């Protein structure tokens, strides 16, 4: 089993109001088969044994599907590996002796709760504003009654791969959430079941994102590169299109 030693410059912040600072910690004998979060677990065990406060970080599934984990490693959200969440990032991608700067996702809309834990409920607020469809109760409709082209279903599925982790916001120089909003608008709006609310949805979600204090998209495309689910900026263009259509041609205000 190969092991590496690392130096961590890790962000420590006691509360949302605390100013925060970097703390330098040694991570020794880290197996290269570990995930990044497992490496942090090892560091935390040592900190606990030493009677010090362990590093707080978010996680849940640890298999890249829930969107809970995430931190910025040497300036890159979820680390340097493309299409990978932090929990799926393995330590073999780092070299013995590396120094890693580990910071929380930073945006006005994402308050730091403690250390690497940020409050991403702003994204939930955007979902509440319009991220739903109306489905009638009663007997289930015949599955083949609404034909959907395979290519359209694929596009919707690609957009639905968004796990809402917030890496797009973290990566964006403007802290804009447009890749997230674009993915949700696309995922619901591409399918016939999502069309009835399409105009209202795009207006409400875009306005809510503004209200939450996210920045404005300037098409820098860092989001697309850092997204662990590799969501395309074509979804942002689709949202822009839907927005223009909804604002000018629909009866929604």
């Amino acid at each position, binding site marked *: 089993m190969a092991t590496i030693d690392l130096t961590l410059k890790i962000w420590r912040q006691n509360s949302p109001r605390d100013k925060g600072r970097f703390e330098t910690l040694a991570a020794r004998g880290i197996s290269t088969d570990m995930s990044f979060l497992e490496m942090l677990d090892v560091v935390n065990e040592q900190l606990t044994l030493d009677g010090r406060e362990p590093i707080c970080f978010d996680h849940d599934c640890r298999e890249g599907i829930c969107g809970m984990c995430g931190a910025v490693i040497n300036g890159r959200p979820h680390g340097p590996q493309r299409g990978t969440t932090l929990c799926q990032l393995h330590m073999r991608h780092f070299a013995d002796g590396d120094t890693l700067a580990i910071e929380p996702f930073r945006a006005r809309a994402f308050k730091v709760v403690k250390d690497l834990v940020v409050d991403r409920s702003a994204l939930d607020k955007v979902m509440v504003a319009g991220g739903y469809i109306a489905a009638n109760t009663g007997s289930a409709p015949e599955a083949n009654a609404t034909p959907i082209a395979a290519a359209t279903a694929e596009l919707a599925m690609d957009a639905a791969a968004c796990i809402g982790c917030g890496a797009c916001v973290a990566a964006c120089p403007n802290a804009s959430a447009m890749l997230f909003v674009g993915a949700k608008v696309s995922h619901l709006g591409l399918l016939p079941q999502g069309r009835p609310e399409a105009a209202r949805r795009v207006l409400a979600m875009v306005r809510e994102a503004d209200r939450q204090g996210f920045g404005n998209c300037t098409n820098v495309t860092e989001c697309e590169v850092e997204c662990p689910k590799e969501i395309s900026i*074509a979804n942002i263009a689709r949202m822009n299109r839907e927005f223009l259509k909804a604002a000018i041609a629909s009866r929604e205000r």
Partner: protein
Amino acid sequence: MSWLVGTFGTAIGKKLFMSVTGLCFCLFLVGHLAGNTLLLSGADAFNAYAAKLQSLGALLRIMEAGLIFFAVVHVGTGLYLFYQNLQARPVRYRVNASGGGQTLGSATMPYTGVLILAFLLFHLVQFTFVDKGDAGVYALVAAAFAQPFYVGLYILAMAVVGVHVSHGFWSAFQTLGMNHDKYFGLLRMGSVVFAVVLAAGFAFLPVFVGWVA
């Protein structure tokens, strides 16, 4: 009324202003460059072109007013977006790195924009809001570009314009929702080609005029 604010006051609405005015400036630059190539044909041709433009009278004034209005909208909205985007991340990262998405153009838009504004004001004072005398505008241009300092300044300014347009052009289409699998690569590349042709075309003129004079 409120739907207007709720449309054009949003992140996407403000970008629509940037996009539409920006594309108009791209069109203007093409026209300006086409007209200026008459510098290559010498003093008579260029002065005749200037006279022809002036003879448009009211039409020219309307176009000028339109350009000024668009500039105010583009610069004003741009500065507001820049301010808002700074606000959106009050605590900056200590370590910054790019995953490879940003380009020279996209990373510097507000700065190149302000530089272009400064150059534009200088350019207007130098060649537009000035008494051209009897010698005509060609003489004015030739006198300026006989000095290597002005040639260098214009070449630098055109490089900045090129960098700005290389991102602005495709970005305007993206903002308008025009992103298509088949044309996207072409648009991104075309944007850079367009910027280079524009900048090189404009930058060549002072060199040529200075060399002839």
